[in-house]
């Protein structure tokens, strides 16, 4: 094939690339490549620390007498209440899960409420009560809180910033960089329900669903894995950016390849239908009550049995394995046989979810 330009009248041409973003776009919050870009190129050079640079869901801090996990999270979601949860439940579960994903036992939470002038107080009360219920479910205490009211139009109803502290029992070493070739990749249940449930609650699907957000604390599931004697290498809750983003981060941090089996990935038929219709990949859709566990293959059966004992893990299945090469890459064996790449989602895939 020659490189000569094609003959007229069919003249081939194309645009130049855009310069770097001069302003933050919504995609920078999507949990995909644009988010990594913002962190790596803007924040890291001017605002970082050794612990922050490790890039796990929580900071792991050595106190001299033991290890603390410390995490912070901000929550925005529209609508504030949706089937299966609300912004308060999301704030508690999100923070608890970030702590649990480094093997910590979550203990204490903080919450800052940024409230838009005009928010109905009964809605705020419902959300606060929902937070308390979620905290009790997770066995954590809300020990610090703050309230600010912002003028109408400067905040979309309510935003919550949360923090959490947990204790990591001795002997646990759970980090994104710990995946080893030969390990099994497990997921605790069907993926994509949260993202699609929120979309449906916004009335953005042309059909009704009975889908509910999976928002749930996962710390009891994590404890169950350790109680069963599973040598857990990596844990992640695939929130923004979905399973694809989490696995890409793990593959990169551990310098391994992760190979998924397309037919093994559990997806609710309604999530699949909505994804088909909207052109989304369920692997890119957010979850708020699922975890990915990477464990030695010899422990996989034990881990699955342990997870299935709890309702939050009853859909646990193996979805793939860790291999040596190509390092940093996530691959998918399609139902038809050939293998394809699973990439990080780029930026804003869905209308903003949370």
């Amino acid at each position: 094939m020659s490189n000569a330009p094609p003959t007229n009248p069919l003249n081939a041409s194309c645009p130049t690339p855009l310069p770097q973003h001069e302003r933050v776009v919504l995609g920078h919050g999507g949990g995909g490549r644009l988010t990594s870009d913002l962190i790596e190129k803007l924040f890291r050079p001017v605002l970082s620390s050794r612990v922050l640079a490790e890039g796990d869901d929580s900071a792991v801090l050595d106190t001299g007498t033991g290890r603390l996990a410390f995490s912070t999270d901000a929550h925005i979601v529209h609508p504030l209440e949706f089937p299966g949860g609300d912004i308060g439940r999301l704030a508690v579960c999100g923070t608890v899960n970030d702590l649990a994903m480094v093997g910590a036992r979550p203990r204490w939470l903080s919450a800052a409420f940024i409230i838009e002038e005009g928010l109905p107080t009964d809605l705020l009360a419902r959300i606060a009560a929902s937070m308390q219920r979620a905290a009790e479910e997770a066995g954590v205490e809300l020990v610090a809180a703050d309230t600010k009211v912002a003028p109408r139009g400067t905040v979309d109803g309510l935003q919550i910033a949360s923090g959490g502290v947990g204790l990591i029992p001795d002997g646990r070493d759970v980090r994104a960089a710990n995946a080893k070739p030969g390990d099994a990749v497990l997921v605790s249940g069907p993926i994509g329900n949260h993202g699609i449930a929120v979309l449906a609650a916004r009335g953005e699907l042309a059909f009704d669903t009975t889908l509910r957000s999976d928002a749930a604390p996962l710390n009891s599931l994590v404890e169950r894995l350790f109680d069963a004697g599973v040598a857990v290498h990596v844990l992640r809750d695939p929130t923004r950016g979905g399973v694809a983003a989490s696995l890409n981060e793990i593959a990169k941090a551990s310098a391994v390849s992760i190979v998924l089996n397309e037919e093994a990935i559990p997806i609710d038929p309604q999530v699949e239908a909505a994804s088909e219709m909207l052109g989304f990949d369920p692997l890119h859709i957010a979850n708020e009550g699922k975890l990915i566990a990477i464990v030695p293959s010899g422990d996989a059966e034990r881990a699955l049995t342990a997870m299935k004992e709890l309702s939050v893990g009853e859909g646990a299945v193996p979805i793939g394995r860790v291999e040596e090469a190509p390092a940093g890459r996530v691959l998918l064996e399609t139902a038809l046989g050939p293998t394809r790449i699973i990439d990080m989602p780029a930026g804003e895939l869905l209308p903003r979810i949370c």
Partner: protein
Amino acid sequence: MKHLTEYRDKDLVHKLLGQIRAEVRREYVLMEVCGGQTHSFVRSGLVELLPDEVTLVHGPGCPVCVTPLEVIDRALKIAARPDVIFTSFGDMLRVPGSEADLFSVRAKGGDVRVVYSPLDAVRIAQENPDRQVVFFAIGFETTAPANAMSVVQAERLGLTNYSVLVSHACVPGAMRAILDAPGNRVQGFLAAGHVCAVMGYWEYPPIAEQYKVPIVVTGFEPVDLVRGVLAAVRQLNEGRAEVENAYQRIVSEPGNREAQKLVTEVFELGPRGWRGIGEIPDSGLHLRDAYADFDAVRRFDVGDIHSVESPVCIAGEILQGRKKPTECPAFGTECTPDHPLGATMVSSEGACAAYYRYHRPTVTVNG
């Protein structure tokens, strides 16, 4: 989802692939017209399972990719106006114009909203009588009926604050242009199933006859795609050049007559610029004079538009099936979905994006 699962049946796919292998006896160059088909071929891995004798070239059927740069630049200027709510299908937001994209316009304060249907845009116009609501009416024959319906509905509602920025493309004109182009390699087409669901396939027999090419109406699931390839290969072996329907569960020859009537009521056929290709006669839909009041181009004077295309990217050659995305020196290096050099890397239906997302086994990982 049983319905779809049936058309992803791997045993059936492999059986049909076996039939294709038994059938091939020379080189075959087939073009799948629609970007949705390209994605399905690559995503399912089918593209690797076809025998080497069958070369697929990826057609121009990605509406985002073929929207001319000057139309995107005009959209950006209209969207930046403070009196405007600019509505669009999500895919268009990331397509770079000469200097910006709709995401950046939104980040700078433009009111840009993603809608799933133009009828949502009409509703937004009803709810915001003091704002101008513009819908970016792009797409092939598949989206034309709903876009036409939005104009008719806005007229019925007496809305004076709704308009459409139209850049509609039609498949038959593009197929002719590809076949007329010097150096054309395409021997047969897998016609775009969704387009045919609306338009039927009565437009195709003259093309098949004149250019002696088989045209097989083809769906999007793996079973549909291999059926389409098998039918085209058989026709070529038998020296036939006919229009054949391999997507009968969805497509009939006349298509959806009501939808066609609506499109004809609002739009008329005319020449259209195709990004990366150039102007093609009878390949676009334009608002009829009777609906000129709803034309965003007339409603908003945004001054002169000087669009600047770069010579780096080979999207034009890819859209015409002359080259594969992986033959582009910028593919996966200078040009990625985060920094697209061309629209084919942007859209979920773009050929380059399909290859980048699913099919880069030889490209090494950066950092």
